[in-house]
Every structure is written in structure tokens, then in C-alpha cells.
């Protein structure tokens, strides 16, 4: 709760939004390209295991790789075509990772098989979870954690509140905004399927106030359903972070190191709801998603429905290409996104945006010494003391950082954003955290 009754969380920052570049652009379906690369490790869990062999013909939506264990999910073909190879391909972070390469059939052959609806009311919780897993559905907000894992009911900690994340607090990104405006019915359909099956009595949809059309569309679509409450929230980063959103909507703090279920909450992105609705009503697995292509250096900023596995280079070419001044391409939002090392990497299930930036935006002013001004302390939504953590990180006193709860940092980057001395605070914290994790293991 903030001062004037509008709901939010404490601290955070207000980066420039840059959303007007794409917020008004209706989603368009991207044309098919000749080649797709499907990484086996699309999601936060274990990589999927291929069930196809090179040379095999596949149709759109056919299973390519099955889940490997519970925290893993299935992978399907976004196109009809031929499996070219089971080899490796570039991850956006530059590493070579196992992937399935599909050569697409000509455009005319790309049709969906007949819809095969599944009635969710006939499934018990175990079957429901298994179905969602078999449809390859992951959290669409960016982290791409397998969605079904959260849906498994636990008798001692039932989910009482379903929280739908429509904040989209990252600058530039408008894909969730467009999904809510254009597919509000589908979002609400997904919410109902989920709330019915998990017997969740309360649904809170959090949308930031800078998307009044999305709020209106969602209210209209949810009209008459007593369970669903659409809440507009003040605009602040990182409101879309799970624990911040729970704080904003329910006023509760999830205990450090615990899951939202601790306070009875289950958080899902709006895009995930559409994926669930399509899986049940049409029998379509997750093989495409809405991606915002934006930034100062994109020829034609767009919101595109992109098949998973489309090479990023092709997506950018569809949007008028990059101009000559482009120096960096970011997958995701500008606050937490991944800088791309190679444009050969494909779109993943968690790819919410592709942003192109010129040199000028990236040339940081020189780094100055820490003034101890406290702007990072006032920015940190986890109430850590980044200024102190930096002081410790620079002399590698990682154990003391651990005592200062550095592991509670969610790496939202608010501290780095706020720092007037341009200290790469969150990067220093990332390095320290991974060093601490390494020590634990070794």
C-alpha cells in the first residue's frame, strides 16, 4: 500500500517506459521461415528428451521431445516439416546447446490439425497437471518455469488465491498488454479453467495503470465472474516480480526463500492463461508466443506472434531489420533481459521481447566511486543494502555478503538503474552469488 491508497509494493524505480513505440500495434502473425531451431532446454527445469529422429516428417504441434522428470516439459514442432538434425545451436547467451532443427514445409502446407478439445472438468488434479506438462506450457513472463509444477495441489498448503500478472513493468515490452487487449476472452477462459480445476476461490489480476485499455478489456471479459477481480496498480518497476506483485495485491510478504504458496498464492502470467485456454479448447500445445520487437534501432517496431524456434535474425528481418548503428540486441526487457551474443539464436518460450539499441544508449558514463548516497537502498524492493554489498563484493568478502542476505537478491537491477555513479551493482552481486553457489557445491 502506498500513501494515496493506490496499491503497490515499497521501493522500486521508475524507468522511462518507451511503451508508446509498440503499445498501439496489433499483433501480427509472422510469416514462416525455412528453418527452425528448438532448444531442448527451453525452460527452467531439466531439458526435454528428443523422441524424433533426423529425416522424420513432423506436423505442426507434433511432439518433438518429451519431459524428463517432473520439473521438465514437452517440446512440440511449431511447423510441419522435416527433422533435419539433432545437434547443437546457439543459445542467446552464446553457448552451444542441444537443439532440434526443423526444415519447414512450404507455406501452403502449414495448417493446424483439427482442434481436439479436452474438457478440463473431466480431469482430476493429477491428470490436469500431466496434461499441462504434455502441452509444453511454461510461464510466459520470461523465466519460463514449467507451469504444471505450480499446479500440483498439496494438501497442507492449498492455493487460495490465483494471481494473474499483467503488470508488464519492463520498459519497451507490450506483448502482455496486447494479449490482454486482443485476447482478453482467452485470458479469462484460461483463468477459469485453472481456478475451476484447482478450486481456487479468488483471482486477482494485477495490471499497471499505464494500460487502461487492457484494464477495460479484462474487466469486460471477466464481467459476471464473482471470483475475478481486476486491479489497476501504480506504475513501478519491478512490480511484475512475483513477490512484489503479491505484496501489491494481497499486502502480504512471502517469507524469504519460500514459494508464494506459503501465503496461499499462485502467480501466473497472462500469456500462460492463453496457452492453457488453447491447450484445452483447441488441443494446441505451446508452439508460438507474442514477442515485442522494439528499441530505437528496429526498422518497424511490432508485436508479432512468432513460432518458437524462429531464428532471431529472421524475426528482426521481418521487422525491417536493424539499422547500421545497432550495437546491442537484448532478448527480454531492458531491465533484466539477456544481451544476445549471436543473432543465430532462436526465439524461446520465454522470449517476451527483442530490443535493439545503438551505441549511445549503451556507452555508460565512467564509473565513479560510491557516494553512499543511498539511492540504491531506496530502490531495492528486497530491502537489501546494495551499497554495502558492493563494498563487500569489491573485496570479495562473499561470506559477509551472505550474512547480509545477498542470496535474497532477485537481480531486478533497480540498484544499478538508480546508481548515479554507474556502478554495475547487480552484476557485482550476480558474480558474488554464483561464487557463493559454487562454494556450496564444491
Amino acid at each position, binding site marked *: 500500500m502506498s500513501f494515496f491508497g493506490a496499491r503497490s509494493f515499497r521501493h522500486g524505480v521508475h*524507468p522511462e517506459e518507451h511503451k508508446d513505440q509498440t503499445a498501439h500495434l496489433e499483433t501480427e502473425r509472422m510469416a514462416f521461415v525455412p528453418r527452425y531451431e528448438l532448444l531442448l532446454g527451453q525452460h527452467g527445469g531439466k531439458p526435454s528428451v528428443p523422441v524424433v529422429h533426423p529425416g522424420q516428417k513432423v506436423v505442426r504441434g507434433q511432439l518433438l521431445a518429451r519431459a524428463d522428470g517432473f520439473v521438465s516439459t514437452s517440446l512440440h514442432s511449431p511447423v510441419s516439416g522435416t527433422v533435419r538434425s539433432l545437434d547443437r545451436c546457439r543459445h542467446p547467451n*552464446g553457448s552451444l546447446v542441444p537443439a532440434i532443427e526443423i526444415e519447414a514445409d512450404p507455406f501452403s502446407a502449414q495448417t493446424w490439425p483439427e482442434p481436439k478439445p479436452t474438457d478440463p472438468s473431466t480431469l482430476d488434479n493429477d491428470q490436469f497437471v500431466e496434461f499441462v506438462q504434455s502441452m509444453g506450457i511454461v510461464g510466459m513472463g520470461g523465466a519460463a518455469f514449467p507451469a504444471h509444477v505450480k499446479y500440483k495441489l498439496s494438501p497442507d498448503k492449498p492455493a487460495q488465491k490465483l494471481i494473474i500478472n499483467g503488470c508488464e513493468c519492463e520498459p519497451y515490452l507490450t506483448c502482455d498488454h496486447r494479449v490482454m487487449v486482443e485476447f482478453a476472452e482467452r485470458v479469462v477462459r484460461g483463468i477459469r479453467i485453472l481456478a475451476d480445476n484447482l478450486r481456487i476461490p479468488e483471482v486477482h489480476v494485477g495490471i499497471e495503470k499505464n494500460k487502461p485499455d487492457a484494464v477495460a478489456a479484462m474487466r469486460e471479459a471477466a464481467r459476471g465472474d464473482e471470483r475475478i477481480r481486476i486491479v489497476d496498480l501504480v506504475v513501478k518497476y519491478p512490480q511484475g516480480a512475483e*513477490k512484489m506483485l503479491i505484496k501489491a495485491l494481497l499486502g502480504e*510478504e512471502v*517469507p*524469504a526463500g519460500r514459494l508464494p504458496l506459503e501465503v496461499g498464492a499462485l502467480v501466473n502470467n497472462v500469456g500462460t492463461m492463453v496457452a492453457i485456454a488453447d491447450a484445452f479448447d483447441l488441443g494446441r500445445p505451446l508452439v508460438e508466443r507474442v514477442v515485442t520487437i522494439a528499441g530505437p534501432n528496429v526498422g518497424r517496431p511490432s508485436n508479432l506472434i512468432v513460432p518458437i524456434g524462429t531464428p532471431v535474425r529472421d524475426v528482426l528481418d521481418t521487422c*525491417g*531489420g*536493424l*539499422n*547500421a548503428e*545497432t*550495437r*546491442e*540486441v*537484448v532478448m527480454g526487457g*531492458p*531491465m*533484466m533481459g539477456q*544481451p*544476445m551474443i*549471436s*543473432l543465430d539464436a532462436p526465439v524461446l518460450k520465454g522470449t517476451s521481447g527483442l*530490443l535493439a*539499441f545503438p*551505441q549511445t*544508449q*549503451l556507452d*555508460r*558514463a565512467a564509473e*565513479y*566511486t*560510491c*557516494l*553512499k*548516497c*543511498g*539511492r540504491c*537502498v531506496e530502490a*531495492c*524492493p528486497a*530491502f*537489501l*543494502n546494495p*551499497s*554495502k554489498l558492493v563494498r563487500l563484493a569489491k573485496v570479495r568478502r562473499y561470506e559477509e555478503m551472505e550474512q*547480509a*542476505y545477498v542470496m*535474497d537478491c532477485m537481480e531486478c*537491477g533497480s540498484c*544499478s*538503474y*538508480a*546508481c*548515479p*555513479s*554507474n556502478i*554495475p551493482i*547487480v552484476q557485482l552481486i*550476480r558474480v558474488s552469488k554464483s561464487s557463493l553457489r559454487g562454494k556450496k557445491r564444491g
Partner: protein
Amino acid sequence: MKPHSGELLVHTSPFDSARLTTPRLMIEVNLVLLPVILAATWYFGFGALLIVAAATAGAVLTEWGFAPRRAGQGRGATLADGSGVLTGILLGLTLPPGVPLWMAFVGGVAAIGLGKLPWGGLGGNPFNPALVGRAFLQAAFPVAMTTWNPQGGFAQWTELRGTPLAPPFLGSEVDAITTATPLSRMKFDGDVEALSSLFTGNIPGSLGETSALVLILCGGWMALRRLFDWRVPVSLLLTVILLSGLFHLIDETLCPNPLVMLTSGGLLFGAVFMATDPATSPAVPKAAFIFGAGIGAIVVLIRLFGGLPEGVMYAILLMNAAVPLIERVTQPRVFGR
């Protein structure tokens, strides 16, 4: 559109940052000080400009000559952040209007040479460097630092006060007319200055501290631009009002009206420009309140019960020393713990 063909750069997120940078912060505070310098010149003549310039020259030259540098940086690279100039101007504005220029220069050297560089430069120093410089001068030249030449109007702006051009160490005879500040008259004679003069600044005192009106406007602007942590001046001033109000109610001869306390001496200047120095004030919000309140309380105690008529400088320096202790007990509660 020409197709992109070059190499991609790889930074780490976030890919955007707030507009306010450290040099810009320093430059903006320097600019906010311009009206204060103008007010000083109005009341104390163009000698005020000379004194501020001498203190700044001492500070800048010391920074240029001795600042620790990173590999590849040229001499004077740290001057670009604007903090050295700021220290010099701040020091100059805390000096009496008749102080010899060479002393102001020495003060600037001490501010940077003792107050800043030995601690590793910007951000490393525990004590406000400008006040370290002033404390140095107070200890070294107690007479010159407590000789107050009367203020005048704009008509006398060409008149030099005191003996600004006195050569170093050759003794500065106090040949000019001197007077007492409202606080020392209050302390030693029991006279209370009219609030209107305190407000406009038409009183004797240090160069930058006399005009409450100008200082309040500057503070308001800095708060609007978020150039400082508002908690420090707010808690500081509130504490002074509450404590002096309490003493005023108990005994009117002991403590004047809180508004007089607020507008006299270096309180407003200290609250707006000195206590708010980011490096020497707490980074933790809760600690900032305690820090400000501590300064306010010490100022009132020194003024009412101490041997000196004024105590803002020592109050701030003392609380600077306490910052690590305050921060130790006010670390924010971590989310979800």
C-alpha cells in the same frame, strides 16, 4: 535502411539508467549555491567572491595535485566529478566576511588534503571535507575565524571587509569595525535579533549563512530535484524546533523563540548543504532520520549550554563520526524476513 552488419556488444542488464549521474549531481549543487554566493556578495561586498574563490582554489589545486587516480587517468581527472569545486565553495561560504584570503586558501587545502584525499577521495571520507577545512581554520586562526565585520547593503558592494589582502602570517591588525553575530549577542548579552533581519540575512555572520530566505529556497529546490535526502534536513530542523521550543517554554531567557534558533547562525546552511553531503550522511533511510535528529539536538545543546555561541559545525562533524554506528543498528529489514 542500411542493414546491420557490425559486431554486437554485450553488456549486462540493466540497459538503462537514471539520468542523474554523480558529476551532474555535484554540478547541480554547485549551481544551487549561486544564489547563496550572490546573497553573500550583496551583504558583504565583492570580498565575499574573493574569499570563496580563494577557498575553491585551495581545494581544487590540492585535488589536482594529490588525488588518487585510477590507472590511465591523467592528473586532475577526479576534478571532472565536480566534488572538489563544491567542497571549496562550501568552505568559502562558511568563513567570516573579513577573513584574509590566504587563510581561506589554506582552509581549502586542509579540506581536501585532510578531509578527503587521505580517505581515498570522493565517497571514502567519513567527515564532511568542507567542515574539516573550517575546523582546521578555527583551530589554527581562532581570532580571524571569530572576527565579524558588519554587513552592509548592495551600495557598499565595492568595499572590502576586514583585511582580506593581509600577507600570510604577518599579523592582521583588526583595523576595521567589527561586530557580533546575533548568536553571540544572544549568548553573551541576552539580546535577541529581530526575526525579519534574520530572515532576509541583514545580519553579521559567515558569508553564506545569513539569509534564511535564500537558504530555504535553495533547500526547497534541492528537495524538488531530489539532490539530497530530505530526511536529513527535515529531521534536523524539526528536532531544533521541538527542543528549542521546549526550552523556550521552560525558560525564555535560556532559549529564544524556536524561529530565531532556526534562522540564526549556520543552522539552515548546515542543514541544507553540509549535513546532506551523501558521502558523510547515512545511506539507510531510517539512519538518516536519526542522523539529522542527532545534529539538531547537539546544536541546541551547544548553543544553550556549551561555551560557544554556535555549534552547527561540531554537531555535524560529531554525527558524521556516528554514521557507521547508526547504520549498524538501522540496516533495513530484508523483504520476507
